[in-house]
């Protein structure tokens, strides 16, 4: 039974802790290495930085067997639907780490070809800045995610998430109105 269905009381409290421990101790990443950040992601899996101590060295090739999608690299316009496709094939519970500045905000490439932030396509849980982020930064991002899983903060946020409202009137109006949107983020 998914964790979201449990009503929180003292009987199920221990069970929740157990489920959260299981979920954070064996997060299996999906291979979504795109560019230079993918090389640093591979280096994190290597012997010097060793992601295997968190139980994460099995990069599952099939998204159906993966829990975590580390979007490592710049997402081009052509790749964006493929990214969404892969994300949709993953099963709940799933998390997304946006690794690197190109995945987080478009990075140094503010142009026609790159989606300015992968959070326009998939909901992101942790952003890891850097160009590329060194393996230590990526591990810090992973540990942040583990902490969020451990406290259950992620689930609470998604349950409590309000319906997306239309953008309120803000004093700043952009002169061009063209941001890239590919589907609506949940």
């Amino acid at each position, binding site marked *: 039974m998914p964790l979201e269905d449990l009503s929180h009381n003292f009987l199920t409290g221990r069970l929740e802790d157990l489920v959260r421990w299981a979920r954070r101790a064996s997060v299996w990443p999906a291979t979504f290495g795109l560019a230079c950040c993918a090389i640093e992601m591979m280096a994190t899996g290597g012997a010097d930085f060793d992601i295997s101590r968190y139980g994460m060295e099995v990069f599952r090739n099939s998204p159906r067997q993966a829990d975590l999608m580390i979007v490592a690299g710049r997402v081009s*316009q052509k790749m964006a639907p493929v990214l969404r496709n892969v994300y949709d094939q993953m099963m709940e519970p799933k998390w997304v780490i946006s690794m690197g500045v190109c995945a987080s905000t478009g990075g140094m490439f503010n142009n*026609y*070809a790159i989606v300015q932030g992968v959070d326009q396509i998939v909901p992101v849980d942790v952003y890891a800045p850097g160009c590329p982020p060194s393996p230590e930064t990526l591990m810090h991002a992973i540990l942040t995610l583990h902490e969020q899983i451990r406290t259950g903060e992620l689930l609470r946020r998604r349950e409590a998430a309000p319906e997306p409202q239309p953008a309120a009137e803000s004093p*700043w109006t*952009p*002169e*061009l109105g*063209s941001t*890239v949107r590919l589907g609506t983020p949940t």
Partner: protein
Amino acid sequence: MDARARVHRAARDAHVTIEASPTTIGLGGETVRFVGRDAYRSTVAALREEGYELCVDVCGVDYLGHPGRDLPEGVTAERFEVVVNLLSLSQKARTRIRVQVPEHDCRVDSLFELYPGAEAMEREAYDLLGIEFVGHPDLSRILMPEDWEGHPLRKDYGVGRVPVQFKEAPGPR
């Protein structure tokens, strides 16, 4: 007459054109030839016969807004240029051919029959600049998505910059 013989004949006839086309010397010591669109394919064929076995690069340049390039006498400047770099392994030499391509009739011959390796490079020039290569087996977009409109590397196509607002900054950059 089969293709091989046609190439030989074109090369023989082109030797006249090669001597006549204006040339300069590039920064690396290579000969840079300026040829017209009609002599383009035969010049490249002749150079291939002379020993330039490898077609290193075929690219396009959009000169809209350039203050003034120094072209030799007899070459009329057009908006686009197709630049071909060839390499001779036997002579350890490079050479360059520059063809002026007008904006209203943006077509040039394809080098696919001479150098099959030019196929992907010509597709890229078509995709990003809109220069058509006549005789190319499959002239479709290669880097941009299929339904993209416009040719991004042209000078009148904006960079597509999204304005970024920084906290407490007076306005978008």
